[in-house]
């Protein structure tokens, strides 16, 4: 066997291994319904929107790493979410929220949150339409 063949085999092996771990290890996008049945060891991503009518609670004087809010997933199911981080600045303005974590009893415990605000980086088109 030539050295190039060995190298080729190594490359292919690493590529397949990396693809496979990506599928096996990475989290998945999900919704609250599925998250309830999911493996409690595994965290999921849930995209949705903030429920503005329901209360948000952040009392940093008690615990700066705990923020509670309600979120609706893309199917419209609402769920109480406890984020174990500080309340993101401007959270009220978010258009879309992605939470990362797992269900825990009556609430979803989020380790992290990503949010999309209406005007990140590049906008102005919609506003220009209606002065």
């Amino acid at each position, binding site marked *: 066997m030539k050295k190039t063949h060995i190298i080729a085999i190594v490359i292919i092996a*690493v590529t397949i291994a990396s693809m496979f771990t990506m599928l096996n290890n990475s989290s998945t996008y999900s919704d609250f319904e599925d998250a309830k049945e999911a493996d409690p060891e595994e965290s999921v991503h849930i995209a949705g929107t903030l429920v503005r009518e329901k209360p948000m609670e952040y009392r940093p004087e008690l615990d*700066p790493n705990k923020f509670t809010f309600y979120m609706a997933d893309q199917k419209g199911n609402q769920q109480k979410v406890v984020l174990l981080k500080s309340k993101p600045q401007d959270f009220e303005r978010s258009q879309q929220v992605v939470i990362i974590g797992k269900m825990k009893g009556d609430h979803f415990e989020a380790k992290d949150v990503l949010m999309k*605000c209406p005007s990140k980086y590049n906008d102005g088109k919609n506003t220009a339409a209606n002065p």
Partner: protein
Amino acid sequence: MKSIDYIGEQAWWGQLGHALVIVAFVTAFFSALINYFRTKSPEHNETWKGTARLFFNIHALAVVGIFLTLLLMLINHRFEYQYVWQHSKRDLSMNYILACLWEGQEGSTLLWLLWHSLIGLVLMRTAKDWEAPVLSVLSMVQVFLAMMLLGLYIGETHIGASPFTLIREREENVGLPWTQLADYLQRVPMFKDGRGLNPLLQNYWMTIHPPTLFLGFALVTVPFAFAVGALLTNRLYDWQKPALPWAFAGVAILGTGILMGGAWAYESLSFGGFWAWDPVENASLVPWLTLVGAAHVMLIYRIKGQSLYTTFFLTVISFLLIVYSTFLTKSGVLSETSVHAFTEDGLNQELVLFMGFFLWFSIVLMAKKNWLRWAYTGITVLVLIMFLQNMVAVGMLILLLTSITALIIGHRYFPKEEKEEELWSREFWMFIGAIVMLVASFQIIFYTSSPVVNKFLRIDFLHNFFVSMHESLGWKWLNTLAEARIAPDENVVYFYNKWQIPFAVLVTVLIAVTQFFKYKKTDTKQLRKQLFWPFVLALFVSGVLSAIIYFNESFGTLTANKQRIILMSSVLFFSTVFAVLANGSYWLSILKGKIKSAGASIAHIGFGLLLLGALISTSKKDTISQNTSETDVTSIAQEGNNAENIYLRKGDTLPMGEYLVTYSSRSREIKDGTPYVYFAVDFLKPQETGKAEYQFTLRPFIQLNPMMGNAAEPDTRHFLHKDIYTFIKFVPMTSLEDSASSTGDQFDDPKNYTIAVGDTIAANSSIAILDSVRKVSESHPLYKSEEIGVSAHFTVIDNNMQRSNPVAYYFVNTTTGSTSQLDAKDPNTGLKLTFWKVRPENGKIDVYMAELLSKKSDFIVMEASVFPAINILWIGCLVMIIGTFIALRERIRRN
């Protein structure tokens, strides 16, 4: 429809710009065509030389013209143009005018065009007999880039987005009522001023980072143009020499650009570090990795005539990856995973076409057999048809798979070296190093592309296939595929580090040993002798240091995952130190300390230091801010709480790491029309005497950004051996408002309390105790004969244990029964207590309590981290770049 004479609009700017874009596009096309013709029929090479050059010169001139036109439009505030209106503003300092120019997509494309044009002018003078093929390829690239600025409409489809479009001509505005007003520029208030440059980007990094990065991108095109030119002319064996300096220039400049991005993120964005493995960062790192590989195999080829195919493969793939990363960041496909990708802008099709064309072109040229070329071209045409039918994902997948197949088949027919490399030769191990870089970059790009993979998986037949597979086999990962829901790992940084550390170990070990190998064949005995001391020394240094910093008593308390990454880190610690010492030793002992020929050694030392600094500062990053304020609280931090924030009330002093910290003051400043609120946090050090000594003040701040929302920016204290890095996570809205105007004397919503004497009620920043309730006696100045008065006496205690004794009154008119109150106000704490009801049945009273908004809860929630040894990283960056430039200069001199 009669045309309207718009008042105050200067349409000629836009017409000039448009015209120049068209000129640039057309001349690029002809330059590509004529140079291609010169390449293919060498007998006409000389006769057409003048014309070809003329076209490229006009092209370059036009591109410079476009750039200057847009710049002058920005300087003259021509807000009738969308691009100017959207990216600049009157009171913006002139320092940022260039930043405005390349803030948007069109501007950054223009920057890329500009660098290519300037490089083209240099190549015209230096490339000699390579001029025609190289300029032909470069001009083809320019055709696609200029196309993206065309902004032409052909029927329903539009090609490119022009930065010279008037706002009223924008697709979404056409037909709106205000576009019918001749004086809309004067009448509609929003056009009096632009929206301005995103304040988050208003710093010098935005002026220097994009041009450096795009110069790096543009430099990668040059080796690509040589490689493709070589394939066109079938001169496969001598393009590597002239292309090599360009490749190394690309390594240096693109590397600088990427590191500037990291420094920017560290210095003024609150990402919490200098590298976040964000998709946009990855997209620029990946082509750099393959380019480093390409430059090294070109070196091997130049000296030893080995690895011919790999020189082509890596050079071509570096360029394609740059186009692909532009696609990732500009098309909006990443918007689900990245914090700073552009949003969708409708340039998808142009970018896919750009990528597809060069993919097809390179593979056809590398195929070398006509049947393969025709088969591949046939499928590409099929994909193009699918594209026009809007089957983008299917098309891309088919193109990707056929391209890989065509590459593998094509490899068989590609000319090869007679014999293989010796095992104990420098070229063999350099080659392995390049391959490791390639595999590492594959891992990054594959994982970064998960949104693209999801798009592929949503293709009907793939979806159905995986659904049925999952139904019959039941494996979980098949379900992930079936539902196209691959999301990034919950801890992206950990995930990438876990994968990339082993690659980094391999690369650094290769960096350490490879220079000691000789080309062809090496005496292994001598090799062992030369490497012995660096090896032993590295083992010793890294062993001792990692024992101290990694394997101390805290190691046992860590989770299995963290222990694993620390074990990997300590191996990398060794290999980076080994790389630094071995290259240092090579430089001193074998090159006798000469600088001129030591470029490679110096660059490798820098690379080793860079990795070492990144390794120590990342793996030993210590988040020192913890919630230590649980004094008046019952709540306990939850299980799994990542407790990374400290809650500081104004004036409070709390322990944090080895310091005591005080949030001492808050101030508001306005710079370039944007308000900033600074939060001064004093750091003190406890002394043995029991007193604390003031050390320094950090002022992390929040930028009140009307476009993007408020943005927190860090403040960092630099020490020689570590950095202390702080940023604000949360503050109450009242702290951000202009306290003088808005909330000066407003109170929050009062809350009612029913209390007895001796009860305590708590406000945000103070408590009130009801001491006594008394009847207002006849001698009291407030006494009136027709009223019964009762007074409530409070003791109010603030955070600093300052006491005061306000009194609230409650009166009942004995004849009418009407009641009145006199509030107790405490100026110190801003507390207002309204006594409004007596409950004789149980002796309790009702009190409303409200707090002055400006006094209420002035606090910050802050994250603070220590980055140890981060200076090693910055020194490494500098050394690596200096080394690369030394090597580059030497190479140009020898050429």
